[in-house]
């Protein structure tokens, strides 16, 4: 009975072997390999379809300028459709292809890999997703969030609201509307601490998956609770629905701030367009818009090849720039690792160590003023607030972070569990 199984597997294995053999033959000698997970086809394709090409664009730009300290960068991309088993398979494939770094994508995926990354000494980033506790470099030595975690986003949001409401939150009311999953609930503890510190009251409004049904919650917020500010932490299609609902109930959107996955051009457009959603604030962990030298360089690179620059640069600059930022941080760490080794091929551990020596990310103001330390792999939890205004995103605050003691306290508490 199970005999057929072997021939099946044999066939599959032979086919795979063929593929790998020819793939390996193409590899040149002076080359660093990066494994990149992506979701272009799964439930979060709204992110991947823009972020991943941007990532490749930046890598191509670096390669066109001679690579990293003489090394060309080769990216192996694997699309995992936001499923966990393919991400595990991808990790092993990257290892097999000699990758010295892995760009993980997705919260369940980084959770399932967090142990293996340490075991296999493979550094990885988890910008904007994954557990906030991963910022603890002592506990998870091989994971680098490199962007504001949900905890930090909450502190930035509250700090921003405080400045908007005249410098004090005493007696104010804040509504927190969130996607009812672990990521959505993660900042609740931080919000609670901040409310005690600042003396405001808050209420939480959970939106069940898949997040397209929130009329009742929005009605509750706008007509009954009537808060001074709304914080929205939503994903996928939910942000667009939230914008429609709040606007539909006559809520002034300049009293609402969205977390990082609730504020791309695609979300605003799906929520009725920029004109309709004027005033909405969003938190960003990478710069927005086109006015960055690195993006001009990418455009010039495309022009030189006689091709049109990608439309996503304009149409969805939030996600595009995040892809560029993600690639830039990683390549900078790899460059430093090569440099530290005096030009020799770095290992995963060297790249890990190099992350803690990053001074600046070479993409100018597009990147936050990252400062990664052995304790803090988040790099300070920096974010910017941008507002929908006059048909585009306008920067409201420069890079900022806030209430770092609260974050430290939560990291320490989480480590004890």
């Amino acid at each position, binding site marked *: 009975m199970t005999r057929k199984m072997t021939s099946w597997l044999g066939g599959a294995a032979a086919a795979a072997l063929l593929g790998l053999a020819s793939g390996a033959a193409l590899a040149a000698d002076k080359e660093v390999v990066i494994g990149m997970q992506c979701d272009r086809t799964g439930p979060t394709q709204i992110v991947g379809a823009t972020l991943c090409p941007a990532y490749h664009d930046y890598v191509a730009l670096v390669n066109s300028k001679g690579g990293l300290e003489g090394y060309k960068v080769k990216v192996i991309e694997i699309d995992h459709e936001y499923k966990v088993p393919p991400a595990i398979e991808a990790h092993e494939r990257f290892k097999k292809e000699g990758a010295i770094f892995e760009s993980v994508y997705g919260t369940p995926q980084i959770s399932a890999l967090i142990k293996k990354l340490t075991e296999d000494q493979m550094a990885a980033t988890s910008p904007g997703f994954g557990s906030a506790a991963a910022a603890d470099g002592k506990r998870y030595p091989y994971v680098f969030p490199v962007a504001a975690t949900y905890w930090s986003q909450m502190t930035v949001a509250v700090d921003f609201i405080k400045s908007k409401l005249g410098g004090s939150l005493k007696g104010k009311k804040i509504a927190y509307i969130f996607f009812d999953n672990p990521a959505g609930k993660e900042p609740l503890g931080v919000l609670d601490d901040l409310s005690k510190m600042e003396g405001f009251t808050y209420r939480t409004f959970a939106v*069940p998956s898949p997040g397209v049904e929130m009329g009742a919650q929005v009605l509750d917020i706008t007509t009954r609770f009537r808060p001074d500010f709304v914080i929205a932490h939503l994903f996928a299609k939910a942000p667009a629905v939230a914008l429609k609902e709040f606007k539909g109930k006559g809520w002034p959107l300049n009293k609402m701030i969205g977390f990082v996955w609730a504020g791309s051009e695609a979300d605003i457009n799906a929520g009725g367009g920029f004109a309709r959603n004027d005033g909405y604030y969003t938190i960003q962990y990478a710069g927005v818009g086109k006015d960055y030298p690195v993006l001009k360089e990418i455009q010039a690179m495309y022009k030189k090849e006689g091709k049109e620059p990608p439309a996503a640069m304009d149409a969805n600059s939030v996600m595009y720039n995040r892809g560029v930022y993600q690639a830039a941080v990683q390549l900078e760490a790899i460059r430093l690792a090569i440099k530290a080794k005096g030009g020799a091929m770095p290992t995963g551990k060297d790249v890990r160590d190099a992350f803690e020596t990053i001074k600046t990310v070479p993409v100018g103001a597009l990147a936050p003023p990252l400062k990664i330390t052995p304790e803090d792999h988040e790099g300070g939890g920096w974010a910017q607030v941008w507002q929908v205004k006059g048909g585009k995103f306008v920067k409201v605050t420069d890079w900022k972070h806030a209430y770092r003691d609260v974050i430290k306290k939560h990291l320490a508490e989480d480590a004890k569990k």
Partner: protein
Amino acid sequence: MLYREAGNFKTTYVKDMALFPLPLTRWVAAALVILFVVIVPLVLDDWYLTNFNLILIAIVGALGLNILVGYTGQISIGHAAFMSVGAYTAANLASKLGLPFWVTLPLGGLMAAFIGAIVGIPSLRIKGTYLAIATLASQLIIEWIINHTPAISGGAAASIEVPRPAIFGYELNSQGDLYYFNLFFAALAIMAAVNIVRSRLGRAFVAIRDQDIAAEIIGINIFKYKLIAFAISSFFAGVCGVLYTYYYGIANYESFQIVVSIDFLAMVIIGGLGSIFGSVLGAIFVTALPVVIRTLVETFGVYIWDPSTLPSVVASLRLVIFGSLIIFFLVVEPEGLARLWRNIRNYFRVWPFSY
């Protein structure tokens, strides 16, 4: 194929019921054991073993679902939830009480069986699509309960890290170690399933599937057997969840959402309803085929597409090819891959004289 059954006469019932009726099948079985226990881990590298591991774990879950859907004829769209029940039970026991895997694994399975039997109660009154909706509800309810009960989920992140399984103090860390771990339980699951379906229990399941009223008339207690089917099936699912937990090193309910239920249902349907071998084939098909397709498209795609567009083409084309292959195989043989294999075998059994 390799042998003829002619001239093989059975003189006792014991011989007739034997798992391996012919000496040659015994040899084949022994060869398979040697292949998978000795040769595969020695010859193949970590990447292949990872794929084997994922397939082996999927086999356990697919077998469980096939017992319910294929043998008993009760549909379930909530199987991933039972996996998460097993996963969180084992993770809590392992992380809070420090219990070893040989305690947490069966307990995780039993907890899933208990919850599964409760979820199976609606099956006593409703069938088909109605039961599908009821089990869909159970998937969402279980997800919600785990998400909102810190005592189960271990806090807001809803993930509990577990230590690697250890035998006599030896920690199973590498893909090779975990391969043996998963192989052992997958083999156990196959053996258990084979023996369940050829026992009185299995025949009762089949009777219920084919015509439940007739089954009741001939004296099968439908109430009991339907719930047993749910419990056994959920036990397999729970064990599958525990294996995933130990394999990933973490229990996280986001790895067991409804998409996973659908994936397992796909395995069972593509592999063949009511076939143990079909469950194995289905698990291989759904787990490994996307990897094979991707590798092939990556390899030959460079000759067709521009390297800058290739990643996007690979991701999309893989889905297109995978979907087309599912349709192709189901059109060629609606009863699944197991039936397809049986057809091929029957053809060659009498070859070259087809009558």
